[in-house]
């Protein structure tokens, strides 16, 4: 804008995006609801680096020496823990927010590489159960479609307390996406703007949660691992309380975490970044001697094998991905640029998952648009992407001399910024200084 006239100066506080938002609010009287996750710059795993091997540590041969990636979730109480071949799982995304084809593709992709996928706020579909060898069933405040038969059909149960995009907020699905099938599964009138509850209807607090977990175990014969998923609000206390309540697995989702529809002010301003959350969750587990006994799954903004490896090095047992998985399926594909333009967006910026008119056919219930996504091909792309992540994690683990990706440790890391050093609890690169921990 200022390219040809150096006299024009855009305000830092009132930049064009801010001005656009004020104008939009003034014109509509409604807050902005959108999909995707936080878009502003936050401290991330990019602010950490691995040290690699040197004289003091020797590396393992890439491609030759084995480097294990498998992980078992639910070893604490479940009679049938989940065994994943890779430490990367697919996060819960509802049928309703996603098309049936997209859900099928997620199941296909995950199953191809031996990992699990997760239902969402809206119940279990048979497409999804059928195409997922390991399926985690979400138990949410809304209890839409919640059904003991599905609970028993699941391989694990995830009690959703919150998600990173909106710790303290409930699900949302706008009228455009409440088609007949979605409405029926949720026992709602077609076409209404649905706001799910943000609190569970029959328990509040960790003591009640303990009893709720007992009930779920009684109903499923103590077979299924029980996860508790929390948005990254107070991860130190939330993790401790989840463990106290009897969780097999704690899932912590940082503020970058994706969403199908949430108020923009919630997405950008509630919760703490994933980087800070992992460290706090691990600290809690170690303090009560539960690290590795209760598994920790971390999500929110995971994009690459480097992100996965850093989360594991900080003490997570696995990560979960949402947005990246959708991109692997075909979300924000430049191939549809003309169509993104028509709806006022652009490939790479598309975030209106709430609107139901996704040109890539993923975050929609429109039958014509959904048809664009071939579940077999899209599932295969996801499997490829998951393979790349896994190979990258192995590469980084071997470079640090590890024969199992779970042997990566904080000592393998250094921070590039003072903020990241303080949040992650690893030394600032070139120093032995961890802010807040003595000299």
């Amino acid at each position, binding site marked *: 804008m200022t390219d040809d006239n150096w006299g024009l100066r855009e305000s830092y506080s009132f930049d064009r995006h801010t001005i656009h938002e004020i104008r939009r609010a003034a014109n*509509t*009287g*409604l807050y902005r609801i959108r999909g995707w996750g936080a878009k502003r710059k936050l401290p991330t795993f990019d602010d950490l680096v691995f040290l690699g091997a040197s004289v003091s540590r020797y590396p393992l041969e890439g491609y030759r020496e084995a480097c294990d990636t498998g992980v078992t979730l639910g070893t604490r109480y479940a009679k049938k823990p989940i065994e994943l071949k890779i430490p990367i799982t697919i996060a819960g995304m509802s049928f309703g927010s996603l098309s049936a084809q997209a859900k099928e593709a997620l199941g296909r992709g995950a199953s191809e590489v031996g990992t699990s996928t997760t239902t969402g706020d809206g119940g279990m579909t048979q497409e999804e159960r059928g195409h997922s060898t390991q399926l985690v069933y979400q138990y949410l405040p*809304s*209890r839409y479609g*919640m*059904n*003991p038969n599905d*609970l028993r059909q699941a391989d694990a149960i995830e009690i959703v307390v919150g998600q990173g995009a909106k710790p303290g907020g409930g699900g949302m699905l*706008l*009228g455009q996406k409440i088609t007949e099938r979605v409405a029926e599964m*949720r*026992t*709602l*009138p077609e076409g*209404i*703007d649905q706001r799910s*509850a943000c609190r569970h*209807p*029959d*328990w509040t607090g960790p003591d*009640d949660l303990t*009893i*709720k977990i*007992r*009930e779920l175990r*009684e*109903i*499923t*014969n*103590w077979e299924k691992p029980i996860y508790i998923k929390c948005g990254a609000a107070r991860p130190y206390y939330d993790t401790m309380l989840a463990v106290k309540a009897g969780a097999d697995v704690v899932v912590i989702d940082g503020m970058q975490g994706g969403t199908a529809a949430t108020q923009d002010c919630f997405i950008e301003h509630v919760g703490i970044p994933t980087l800070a959350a992992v460290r706090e969750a691990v600290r809690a587990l170690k303090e009560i001697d539960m690290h590795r006994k209760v598994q920790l799954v971390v999500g929110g903004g995971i994009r690459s094998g480097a992100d996965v490896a850093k989360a594991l090095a900080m003490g997570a047992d696995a990560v979960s991905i949402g947005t990246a998985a959708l991109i692997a399926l075909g979300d924000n594909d430049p191939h549809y640029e003309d169509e993104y333009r028509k709806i006022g967006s652009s490939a790479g910026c598309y975030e209106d998952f709430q609107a139901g008119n996704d040109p890539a056919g993923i975050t929609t219930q429109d039958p014509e648009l959904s048809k664009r996504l071939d579940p077999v091909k899209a599932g295969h792309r996801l499997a490829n992407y998951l393979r790349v992540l896994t190979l990258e994690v192995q590469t980084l683990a071997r470079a640090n001399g590890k024969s199992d990706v779970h042997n990566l440790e904080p000592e393998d890391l250094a921070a590039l910024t003072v903020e990241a050093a303080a949040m992650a609890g690893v030394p600032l690169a070139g120093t032995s200084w961890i802010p807040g921990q003595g000299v």
Partner: protein
Amino acid sequence: MTAVAPGPANITVMDLARDDLSQVNQDLQKADPRGGPFRVLNPRGAHALACGLTSGIDVEIEGHTGYYCAGMNQAARVTVSGNAGVGVAENMMSGEVWVKGDASQSAGATAHGGLLVVEGNTAARCGISLKGADIVVKGDVGHMSMFLAQAGRLVVLGDAGDSLGDSIYEARIYVRGKVASLGADCIEKEMREEHRTELRDLLERAGCDGVGLDGFRRYGSARQLYHFKAENLDSY
């Protein structure tokens, strides 16, 4: 699961003073519906008792129960001769749960089907997020009852607490006594013949012999909050 007297020979007696809760639940979950009824003694406020039942058996619980008694019930008929804790018959799919005493909060929460009868009163949030079941309370219900209720029916012979039916969807509420206040988007509605018929039927199923329809009023959704509108700000 050893049968101890007293009682007719085909009654299976379980005693929580002696038997393990998980074992009792499993035996009930696997019970043959063609067999005789089950009697559970000394529940002593046990949580998650008789939850996850899947067949049309009769279970009589002699005493007070804790949280989530008969949770997620399918087909079974469970009677609690005592009071029930939080979330009795939560997410029930079918069958019948009958509480002879009072019930705590969130009675019948999210239940999809079946019938819950409470002879006494219930605490707050009775029928919260109800998804199709029927609830008949012979006493009073606490505040925020039928909050977010989506489908199903609640009949209250006594009074209802504050914010009845807040943010209710398509569920229907019948109250004979006083309503302290109605929640957002919940209004009184006309009693038409079809409503009298369904109320009569519900009262009959709940064994309310001799209770006439006089004095009952119907409440339901004004459907004004089904879509986001800035003008609705005052209602939230």
